[in-house]
């Protein structure tokens, strides 16, 4: 440390004779910058909670999200966020999130871990099996149905439009019609 950063000396030499401000400013305080300034990138986003649609700035450093706050440019939210939106960092980077596929076999008493590819393959098999077993071409009066009532889906209101679109498109092609979301819940 350079001698001229020694607080006592700064206090004696400078105008902060009582040692209350400039003279006692620590090295950390001196070099303090907000992590928003040191971020590599500011990614534009939208709050995932309610439908107000508050705009968020997502600050990324070294490939990780380091902060999320309101985007002052938004005509809807003007940079403001409620407590949920303000907790977006904890939501997205918190310890509560899981990152493994879990599987419970029939009559099983606990979870088992599963590789993602294997799990996807198993789900695809089950979709096709249930569809084959429950496919209906016609109702009792001979009217065309071309569907399955064996497969249902619930969810969508928290998803992106593009996700809902692929869901509806795939399910419809498979003949599944019991496709629902929180709009009724």
């Amino acid at each position, binding site marked *: 440390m350079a001698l001229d950063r020694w607080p006592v000396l700064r206090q004696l030499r400078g105008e902060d004779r009582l040692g209350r401000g400039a003279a006692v400013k620590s090295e950390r305080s001196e070099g303090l910058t907000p992590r928003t300034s040191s971020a590599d990138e500011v*990614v534009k*986003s*939208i709050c*995932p909670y*309610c439908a*107000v*649609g*508050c705009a968020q700035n997502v600050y990324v450093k070294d490939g*990780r999200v380091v902060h*999320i706050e309101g985007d002052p*440019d*938004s*005509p*809807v*939210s003007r940079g*403001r966020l409620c*407590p*949920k939106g303000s907790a977006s960092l*904890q939501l*997205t980077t*918190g310890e*509560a*999130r899981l*990152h*493994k596929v879990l*599987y419970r076999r029939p009559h099983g008493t*606990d979870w088992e871990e*599963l590789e993602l590819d294997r799990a*996807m393959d*198993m*789900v*695809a098999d089950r*979709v096709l099996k*249930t569809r084959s077993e429950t496919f209906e071409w016609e*109702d009792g009066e001979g009217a065309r*149905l*071309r569907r399955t009532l*064996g*497969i249902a889906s*619930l*969810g969508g209101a*928290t*998803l*992106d*439009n*593009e*996700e*809902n679109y*692929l869901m*509806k*498109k*795939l399910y419809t*092609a498979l*003949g599944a*019609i*019991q*496709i629902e*979301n*929180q709009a009724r*819940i």
Partner: protein
Amino acid sequence: MGTSFGRGGATTFQQDLQNSDCIVIEGSNMAECHPVGFQWVMEAKARGATVIHVDPRYTRTSALADVHVPLRAGTDIAFLGGIINYVFEHEKYFREYLVSYTNATTIINDRYLDTEDLDGVFSGLDRENRTYDFHTWQYEGMEVQAASGQRDEQYQDRAGGGGTVRHAARGESHGSGGAAISGDPEHDPEMLHTRCVFQVVKRHFARYTPAVVEEICGVPQDLFLKVCEAVTSNSGRDRTTAFVYAVGWTQHTVGVQYIRTAAILQLLLGNIGRPGGGIMALRGHASIQGSTDIPTLFNLLPGYIPMPHAHEHESLDAFIEADAPDKGYWGNMRAYTVSLLKAWWGASATDENDFCFDYLPRLTGSHSTYETVLAQMDGSCKGYFIVGENPAVGSANARMQRLGMAKLDWLVVRDFSLIESATWWKDGPEIESGELRTEDIPTEVFFFPAAAHTEKNGSFTNTQRMLQWHFMAHEPEGAARSDLWFYYHLGRIIRQKLAGSADPMDRPVLDLTWDYPTEGSIEEPSAEAVLAEINGWDPEGRPLASYQQLKDDGSTSCGCWIYCGVYADGVNQAARRKPWHEQNWVANEWGWAWPANRRILYNRASADPDGKPWSERKALVWWDEEKAEWAGHDIADFSSTKPPGYRPPEGATAEDAISGTDPFVMQPDGKGWLFVPSGLTDGPLPTHYEPQDSPFRNPLYRQQRNPVRQVFKRKENRYHPDPESPGSDVFPYVVTTYRLTEHHTAGGMTRWLPYLSELQPEFFCEVSPELAAERGLEHMGWATVVTARNVIEARVMVTERMTPLTVQGRTVHQIGLPYHWGPNGYSTGDAANELVGLSLDPNVHIQEAKAFTADIRPGRRPRGPGRGALVEEYQRRAGIGEETGMAI
């Protein structure tokens, strides 16, 4: 709102609330549930607006309002109907607006009979099948043609009905387009004809006097009149009033009619399509509007095109013929439908094969989430995907949700953490009570970790129909993936497995356009490529700019016609972020709103019939004579060059049939509908019915409840005795459920977060000091709350914010239950939805969670088998059986 105005979206946008002179928040707790949107209410208040909060509870919204009106949960139609009556009585309606822009002058046919004539039901009731034949509700001198979704009724005519399960959800099928009528109705411009809509509506509401409002709602007359005075004195040429609602209006057995009542009132006052006016629907999830626009709903295809029904929709032509009106924008339904089929089945969809119309699966009645649960319990539905929802906590009659899942072959849950819907087989309430044993449950369960909004590209459609793009900040970690990834790759794998199949069942899957480019190390499909498909392409493969370019010959493709234009010029319009301070207050250059980036719907009505603003203070769009086009602050929700003087020539169809003075362009007659001749299952006008479970008789009629509400005769879903019948006193209190600011829905995105959990750490119930004294409840002690469905426990919050009301001469207490909690997560508690029964609105199949009855007593609930035994004891004591509450 679809049936009244033509589209099912909020008519205005949140920022426009700042222009209101009076804001009535009813059926919404805006400050708590939409705090950031509430800034616009505070802006209005700072400019001198009167803010009124009508709600059973005094909430954080009430604390900031000028007037709080506590009312009995489930009585809003009576309250709003009372204001309508006041408007008629004191001639406070906006006559010129009414005559020009609504169907007030239209004559109704002479077979129509009102609830006033038939003691609480409308003409056309089929008591045996619990349905209405709507034919007697028609206009005079014209045939009502089947509208979007309502072919069901004709199906019923032919097939002989089949009870409530035959209903499809019609309310939503008007999400972007009104019902269909053809011909020219008769009018009385003086509105004196006894059968003109004005007179019919006036008579219908005449009994909703201040005294009746007090008797039903428990609102003292002077307080009620204060609201009437505020609303009417802040409406007219120079002033506007806005209504704000949320699920406090929709979650009832007459939910759609709640909103209809507000729509009638706002049309009478001339508040639709004008700045500071409108009806603001506040939705509770980031893209719940989007998930009805591009529906993950059984009864709809993208853009509110109805799903075809068995029998009646054998061919594309028959489908269009049946569902498309010839006037209004729905007149182009064939173009919208063919373009959708081209988007999905590409080159396989040809004119010769009806553009693969036959590939669409067919409906046979209602297949809503609640019928699905019953089908699971009965074993016919075997596989279930749960994607970002938590029905084991968040859906009505949560126990039934779990019992249904326990019968499945397989279950896929996609979420951030192990929510209750993923772990019920291991540690759910039925495992604790001994009703289910883990080892006996055959269901295979897959839990897939979901990606967060920061880990994927995509668009949300917010509560004001505005699409906003969010960008990926980084790829998700581990096995976490977006739902876009999951469904794209699931489809890819399934198509691989089916490759080469000759089974006609597999054709729709194999012919599907499914070749999205992928990006990055995890092969994430390009969300922008999906958006481009939703937007659609012209015959040369260029992005379309507007749905008006769509063709019905297969030359254009479009995945959702109302979103056409969101990718105009190949630019992601939803990603536009021009700062608000660099544009006017409407801010059309931020994001993109449907339809066609218009922010206030029906805004042609902000100008008088000649195209001039009603007043300078309330100017929004106007006819620019010089340029011969509509100009203004917002984009006109009207053909941009159609002059006010335009009158449709004989035989005009689609938008050409809409005159230059008709603002409600989706409606076949271009009018706002005070009276709905077709499109609703439970009546052309709203009328007060008591909730399914209510401690009071309906004082208006012998008809107690909505006669065509959906009820289910299941032992897991018993209802409470009729009021004033033996056993009715067993469940004497009114209950309403709600959210708190600090949590979100069923808690999957909040109860696991320490920063939010510490703010509201535990499930509690709110009661008045009087109820606490009556039942011996202690502040911060425990209470047990019981219905015929289940029993839960909660910590007790005694507060004077809960007020007893006087209804029909006696005191009624209300219990408040926030519904966020469940047994998993960091902050835990019982789920309020255990108590809620399945009784649904017949139009949209939404459950009645906002008004039911219960008993409350001090102490904790029983553990183990005692839990079910207590519910059974209550059922016995109340004499509840399978017929209880089932009367029409």
